[in-house]
């Protein structure tokens, strides 16, 4: 990762906040830090308590006015959405701790862990890659159904993620099973439109197809099983809404396939 970005964030945070870069996504650089932004610092003598610092560096490739608007908009909307989503019972998202919209920084709860045998950080993507030796195990099935359930819950509450991929789901080991958390809501939005939900599902399906091609069919089936569960629990209204979303999902998918390649 570019040293320049690290020094940028270090100079902005001052040397009192030690940061360790852990990943460079497309939009943001993710650091861990042991410093809580406003709790008294002596409370955290335990070095194992970590926080995530997500920093959206200025993107030099794009026009400054686009860049400023996007950074502010996405940081703000991600913070707002996280705050709202954390109030939905049963939905797992990281807790928001602090945000600095103009500098493109948010502090959130640290989630996930290193997977065994050097399989990397516990994103759903790495987890599925780790499981390729036994791709159809009960454990994988349970995990994916749970992920689907989380997405269903998100949609049922009229929120959309905007960038559902297997990189944007983090798994937390709870001893007996893996608990999925949805992360990275930079493109998220509150939306009652079936179109947005259909596109969300389509984006996810394509991400699964392209990243986990060989097992994609079964994986998608499990994801949708969990997704449907949420709606089916709700009475008639849930069934109807589910039907609308699935119908639109199918339409979006056909649009993708059938779209004319003509100029």
């Amino acid at each position, binding site marked *: 990762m570019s040293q320049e970005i690290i020094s940028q964030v270090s100079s902005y945070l001052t040397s009192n906040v030690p940061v360790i870069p852990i990943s460079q996504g*497309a939009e943001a650089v993710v650091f861990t830090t042991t410093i809580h932004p406003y709790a008294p610092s002596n409370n955290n003598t335990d070095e194992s308590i970590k926080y995530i610092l997500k920093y959206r560096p200025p993107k030099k*490739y794009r026009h400054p006015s*686009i860049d400023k608007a996007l950074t502010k908009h996405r940081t703000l909307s991600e913070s707002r959405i996280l705050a709202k989503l954390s109030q939905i019972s049963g939905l797992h998202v990281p807790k928001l701790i602090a945000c600095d919209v103009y500098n493109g920084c948010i502090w959130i709860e640290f989630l996930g862990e290193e997977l065994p045998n050097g399989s990397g950080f516990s994103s759903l993507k790495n987890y599925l890659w780790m499981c390729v030796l036994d791709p159809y195990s009960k454990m994988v099935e349970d995990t994916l159904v749970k992920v689907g359930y989380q997405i269903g819950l998100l949609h049922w509450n009229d929120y959309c993620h905007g960038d559902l991929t297997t990189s944007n789901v983090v798994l937390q080991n709870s001893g007996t099973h893996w608990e999925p958390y949805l992360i990275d809501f930079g*493109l998220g939005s509150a939306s009652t439109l079936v179109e947005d939900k259909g596109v969300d599902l389509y984006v996810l399906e394509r991400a699964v*197809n392209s*990243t986990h091609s060989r097992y994609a069919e079964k994986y998608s089936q499990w994801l949708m099983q969990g997704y449907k569960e949420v709606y089916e629990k709700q009475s008639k209204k849930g069934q109807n809404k589910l039907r609308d979303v699935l119908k639109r999902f199918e339409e*979006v998918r056909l649009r993708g396939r059938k779209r004319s*390649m*003509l100029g």
Partner: protein
Amino acid sequence: MVNLNKVLPRNGRDYYLALGLEGSANKLGVGIIKHPLLPKHADSDLSHHCELEILANIRDTYVTPPGEGFLPRDTARHHRNWAVRLVRKALQEAGIDHPSELDTICFTKGPGMGAPLHSVVVMARTLSLLWDVPLVGVNHCVGHIEMGREITKAENPVVLYVSGGNTQVIAYSENRYRIFGETLDIAIGNCLDRFARTLKIPNEPSPGYNIEQLALKCTNKDYLVELPYTVKGMDLSMSGILGYVDSLSKDLFNHNTKNKLLFDPKTGEQLVTVSDLCYSLQENLFAMLVEITERAMAHVNSNQVLIVGGVGCNVRLQEMMASMCRDRSNGQVHATDERFCIDNGVMIAQAGLLQYRMGNAVQDLADTVVTQKFRTDEVYVAWRE
């Protein structure tokens, strides 16, 4: 390991010769290439390192008057008028006296416009029967990718494919070029072409090029006309942007002083020029393209980008992509110039010859039917590991 020498060159030669015919849109391209037969290709993963030699690369573009797009029927007529002459010229340039020396004739099977594709395949079939040379049907997008890989030597890049008919972010995995992101409605080139039509700027040499030149003339680059920014994950949508910028340009032409974005509400003074609109449109669309490319790179842990397709010649897009790559560790951007970026016959020959060397030539003319819809991920990429 892949054996690219499964099928040996004709007549015991130590090199392959392929003719490539492209006519899926308004360009008719004929290319002739040569691959040396090398032992290293028998047991390696070097499909981006064929030591390609280009013997001929000829193109003729069907150009329509300003304000008009190219229609399938007229484009097909253009291709029929020129195809045979272009092949003759290419053979002369390549110094091939006996065309039956060719190992294979490669044609574009799709995607593209039906009538132009068909006009070329009719000639391809006839040549194949006359010279007794086997045919290979090539996916146009795969042609772009293989051409780009061979020219730039990018081994396993994330590919941004941007042209008049396509906008896709592609990465290779398990013998397929998989689509990670794409447009949900119109293609980038189509968006630019149609905006050029609204502005009535010439289609010569290409509408996108003329927009690029106009954008350079923008005098106040600090100011940007705000346009919708519609990235959805790794996908994007452009029809809304086109509709909006079209309506702006109409207000500009009709001198609709009620539009406060374009005219000063008090004095009625014009604030924005056509160049400003071109500049803002490019900045906005390209930022979206670079963003989805970067998302795909992060998702597949890649640090190389290859830009292919007609819009890939745009210098501003290349600059922006390079700037994005500088901020990623070991980021590299690869692009080609207009000889290879814009549709051409060589790219069809390159992808087709790889396919041929793997033993996948057409056995039955019934398999040479062209198709308007042919997704990049439908092709089995036998020549890569």
